[in-house]
Structure formats: C-alpha cells, structure tokens
C-alpha cells in the first residue's frame, strides 16, 4: 500500500490568491491529468507583493522543504539568486528557449549571467481612461502628462457643473513597492533615472528626476488625483475607477478585464487603454512588472518541479491564462494569436509597451533600496512644502551606502 506514495511526487507551489481561482484549478487539473505521477499542492499567500515577499522569503530563509515552485515578482530574481534561494535553471532553460520570450522579461530573470526564473506573465503600467467622457469633451487620449492633467481638470470641472463628483486621476501612491513603479514611470518619461545600472549609484538628484517628482507632487496629488491616493494600492485605486469616479487611471493590464466586467464595474464598455503619457521631450516608459516561476534550491523534487514550471510557461498554458484571466503572456508569439487578441483586444497594441517596459533596478539589495525609494517618494509627494533637492540628496546617500554594503 506504500506504492502510491512512492510513485507520486508532490510539488508544492507557493502562489498568491489568484484573480480567477477557477482558471488555476483548471490548469492544475490539466497538469495532474497529464502527469499522474506528480501532484500539485498549492499554498496561497496574500495578494500584496510585499506581504507575499515576506512570506516567501521567510520560507526560503528557513530552507523550508514545503516550497518547490514559487512565484517571483519581477524584482526578486536578483535577490533570490544572490541568496541562493532560487535554483539556477541553466541547462534546463537554454538560451535557445529564452529567445521565445520577451527580452525585458528574460533580462529581469538574469543575475550575474545566469537565469533563475521563467517569466509567466508580464505587467506594465498602462493608462486607462473613460472613453465616454473624453468623447463628451472632445479629447483624445493624452500623449503627455501635462495634457492628461489639463484634460482631467476640465472634465472634472465640467462634470462638477452637472453635479457629478468625479476625480481626474487615480494611481498607486501609498508608501509601498507600487509607489516605486508609478514614480519610475514619471522619471523615465522625463529622461531621468533612479539608479545608474552600471555603478548602481543613485541618480535621484538629477534635474529630470526631481522635475518628474515635483510634477507629481504639484500637479497630480491633491489636484487631479485626490489626496487619498497616498493611501492607495492597486485595489483601492481601481475601485475608484470602476465605480466611475475617475477619468484616468494608471494600472496594470489585469484591470482591463475587471473594468470591463459589467458584474463588477460601473464603467464596463466605457474604458479605453493607452500607453502611459510622457513629458515633453521624453518617451513613454512603463515599469516592467509581472511574475516569474522559480524553483527552490532546497526543493527535493527539482525534476518534477521543472516539469510543472515548463508546463505552466508553455505556449498553450500561457494562452489559457491570457484568454481566461487576461494576463499578458511572456511568449512573443502569443501577441499574434487570434484567440488571445480576441479575448484581450487591448493586447494588440501592447506588445511594444511590454517590449519596451523597463525593469526596476536589479540588485540583491533591492528590497532595502526600494524601501529608501518608497520613503523618499512618499515624503516628496505627500508634503507640498518639502525641499526636494535635500530629500533626494539624503535618499541618494542612503542608497549609495546600501549599495556599498554589498561590495
């Protein structure tokens, strides 16, 4: 009677609570069907990236045997690689295979020349807008941030006259990782930079960087966006948008599905999507987000684990995910797939967005760096009277000190 245990390997998959649990149930069932010798045991963590990170890293620090396969946010592979938590995939995931994936996504999984994760889906910031309102006031989707702010302001004023309370914009500005994503988009699109990719030193004090931050502080927070955005993560900001209380909304692609779902959204069918605006003279840049699959170095079932990772990242499964839960796939080819595009018409124009999406600084010390960035941005944008140069300088010093630690 011991037999079934001997033949069936259990792969423990640490995931977060998915948007559509049924899609994942289906995928796992499919896998288990095809591989009767492997059983998938899922453990779901919190949906918040930070909380999920804390949970996962504690398991890994613990060398816990109950992790085989796990999700990694796009910023984690360096950390996980340096810490020795994620297994280098090397031969299993040869260069030839990698070329089928989006370049930015592969880059994000590379640390010190080795690859540590397989990108499963990508995210990047996009701008949602209310087609009905823009049309009503005769606007087209804004190219620059200035335009967006102006459009938002006139729409808010116009709607107010008609007695409808509405905000101009909602995004994610709480002191957490998402704040770094949002702010990076402003900085990059002003030709600024947060961290020098070569030296790892801070570039926050550059004029362009500071200018972008100042714009957010003076023109967005408390103006077109309510001050409440300072407490918003994705769910809260999306909530405002789908309740019809915001003209523009910055979010990840997943919001498309939700905001067009009449069961959940008050603005279904009235939502448009476009690239993020930029500053005059800059170029639109989104922050690369997305989730990777990694395998724990401490896993006792690496073979079965890889089997599962390979299955999940395969074209057909990515397609299922893309079609059924609206996540943007990492395999380039799927952006030409009819079914995918049919289910997610907005993907058609997004391939470029994804292709040019910019990863956040890659460093095993990124969590510490990110905390400094979060602090700096939060401080900078929530206090209208703050001395940005001074704050930036202080933050830079700290970042440089942290970076020096790793040397």
């Amino acid at each position, binding site marked *: 009677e011991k037999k079934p245990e001997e033949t069936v390997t259990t792969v423990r998959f640490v995931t977060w609570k998915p*948007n559509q649990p049924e899609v994942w149930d289906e995928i796992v069932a499919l896998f288990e069907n095809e591989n009767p010798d492997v059983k998938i045991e899922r*453990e*779901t*963590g*919190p*949906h*918040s990236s930070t*909380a999920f990170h*804390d*949970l*996962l890293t*504690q*398991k890994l*620090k*613990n060398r*816990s045997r*109950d992790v085989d396969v796990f999700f990694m946010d796009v910023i984690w592979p360096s950390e996980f690689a340096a810490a020795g938590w994620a297994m280098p995939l090397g031969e299993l995931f040869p260069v030839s295979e990698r070329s089928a994936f989006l370049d930015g996504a592969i880059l994000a999984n590379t640390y010190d020349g080795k690859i540590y994760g397989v990108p499963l889906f990508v995210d990047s910031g996009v701008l949602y807008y209310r087609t009905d309102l823009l049309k009503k006031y005769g606007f087209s989707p804004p190219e620059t941030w200035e335009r967006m702010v102006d459009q938002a302001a006139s729409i808010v004023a116009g709607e107010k006259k008609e007695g409808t309370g509405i905000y101009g914009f909602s995004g994610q500005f709480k002191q957490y990782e998402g704040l770094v994503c949002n702010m990076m988009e402003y900085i990059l699109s002003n030709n600024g930079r947060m961290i020098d990719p070569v030296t790892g030193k801070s570039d926050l004090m550059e004029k362009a960087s500071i200018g972008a931050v100042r714009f957010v502080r003076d023109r967005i927070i408390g103006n077109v966006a309510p001050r409440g955005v300072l407490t918003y993560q*994705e*769910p*809260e900001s*999306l*909530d405002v948008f*789908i*309740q019809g209380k915001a003209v523009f909304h910055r979010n990840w692609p997943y919001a498309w599905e*939700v905001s067009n779902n009449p069961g*959940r959204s008050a603005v279904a069918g009235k939502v448009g999507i476009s690239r993020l605006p930029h500053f005059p003279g800059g170029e639109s840049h989104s922050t690369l987000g997305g989730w990777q699959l990694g395998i724990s170095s401490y896993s006792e079932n690496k073979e079965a684990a890889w089997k599962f990772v390979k299955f999940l990242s395969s074209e057909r499964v990515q397609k299922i995910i893309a079609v059924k839960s609206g996540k943007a796939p990492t395999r380039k080819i799927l952006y030409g797939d009819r079914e995918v595009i049919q289910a997610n018409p907005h993907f058609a124009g997004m391939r470029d967005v994804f292709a040019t999406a910019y990863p956040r600084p890659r460093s095993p010390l990124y969590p510490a760096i990110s905390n400094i960035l979060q602090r700096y941005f939060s401080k900078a944008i929530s206090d209208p009277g703050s001395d940005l140069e001074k704050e930036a300088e202080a933050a830079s010093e700290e970042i440089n000190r942290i970076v020096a630690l790793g040397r």
Partner: protein
Amino acid sequence: MKKTVFFLTVICVVFFSLLPFLWFLDTSLKTEMEITSIPPVLVPDFALDFYRSSIEHYNLLHYLWNSIIVAGLSTFITLSLSIFAGYALARLRVKYKGLIMGGLLTVSMFPQISIAGPVWRILQSAGWLNTYQGLVLPYVTLTLPLGVWIVASFFRELPKELEDSAKIDGCGHVQTLFRIMLPLAAPGIFTAAILVFIYAWNEFFFALLIMTRQGYQTLPVGIALFQGEYSLPWGEISAASTVATIPLVFMVFLFQKRIVRGLSAGAIKG
C-alpha cells in the same frame, strides 16, 4: 444636575468604547452595496454573505481553528508552569526571589523586536517555523511573567496558616499544593487563564513572523493580510474581525470582575 452630567459621561464613555466595534459588526452584516453607500446604512441587511465569503474564499475557519489551538495550548502550558513557579515564588524559601520576580517582569516588557530575530533563528534551526509548537513556545515565554505574577499574587493572598495547617495535618509540599492551595487559588488561576488566552489570541508580531504558511496562520495575521483584488474586502474583513472579537467580548462581559482583578493584581500589587 450633577447626576445628569455624570450619566452623560458614563454614556459617552460606553458609547466611544463600543462604537468602533459595533460599527464593524454592523458592517459585517451589510451587503457590498450598503458598505460603500453615503450616507451610511445604519440598519444592515443582515446578510451573512460576508461571513460565507470569508469562510469560502478567505480561509476564515482555518484561521479560527489555528487561533483556538495556539491560544488554547499556550494558555494550558503557561498556566501549568505558572502554578508551579507561582507557588514556589509565593510560598517557598527561594533564594533571589526578588531577582527572579523582577527578571520575569522585565521579560514581560521586552519589545518583541528585540528578541524576534534570534527567536526566529532558534525556531528555524529546530525546524519549528510554521508549526504550532513554534508559535506556542514564544507565547508561553511571553505570557509566563503575567501568569506567574497573577498566580503568585493569588497564592500570596491565601493565608499562610492554611498551608501550615495542611502540613501539620500531614501533607507534603505537593499535597499541600494540589489539595489545598490549588482549589483555593482556582479563581486566580482562572483569571490568569483568561488574560493569557486573550494575549495569545490577539498576538500579531510573532504570529506574523513564525506562521508564514497560510494553513497555520492565526486570526490576527489573517485579518491583517486580508486583501482582495478590486477593493479592500471590508465586508470580509469586518466579518472575520467580528468572529475574532466576539469570543473576547463574551469573555469580557462574563468575567469582567476577574479580569479587572487580575490586571490590577498583575500591575499594582505586582
């Protein structure tokens, strides 16, 4: 006139004490629409949707079960140890009694952060992260001072003559403890048990560090990390919070006298 002012103060105090809880209770019984409505709906729909949903989608029952196990075990172990140590410290010749009591008191005041790292490492090397014992052991440690102090202070209040009498009647130390002291200190022990239970039920910091697997997380951790996709699931949060709070509210209403006594014994009498 004086009376009116007094009763107004009483009403104010009671109102403010209960308001947030009642508001959350109210919220948990509303529907999704009612939660966000302005002006707020006072009389809810009494829909139990959020309870159902927090059980089905948010593992509420798991959290509840874990909390019961962890708090129950901690209470049991802490009290067993407290009875022995409390008796010895209250009644027997012990060297450095003051030092021991003072040391215990200091422990109860340790900020969690100052021991968190090492405790975590100890549990890690024992392989006890994400196990019940992994959380119960620190809880026992942190609640022991409280338990010992309260139990000892109750023991100390029992007349010394009773014990002398028992000894002359032929009891050894152990018999004296179990046949005479224990039954008499039962109210004190019960008091300590309530307080320890409440502590363990409410503790968050260590639960957050040690219980990283959802299957082992306790209610506070569950409630703190509740997060949905589209909006914060306030309905579910309030439902889970109500579930976490109701037992305590019951305890408070049933045992308020003991709790007050225990707290002041722990604090003032020391």
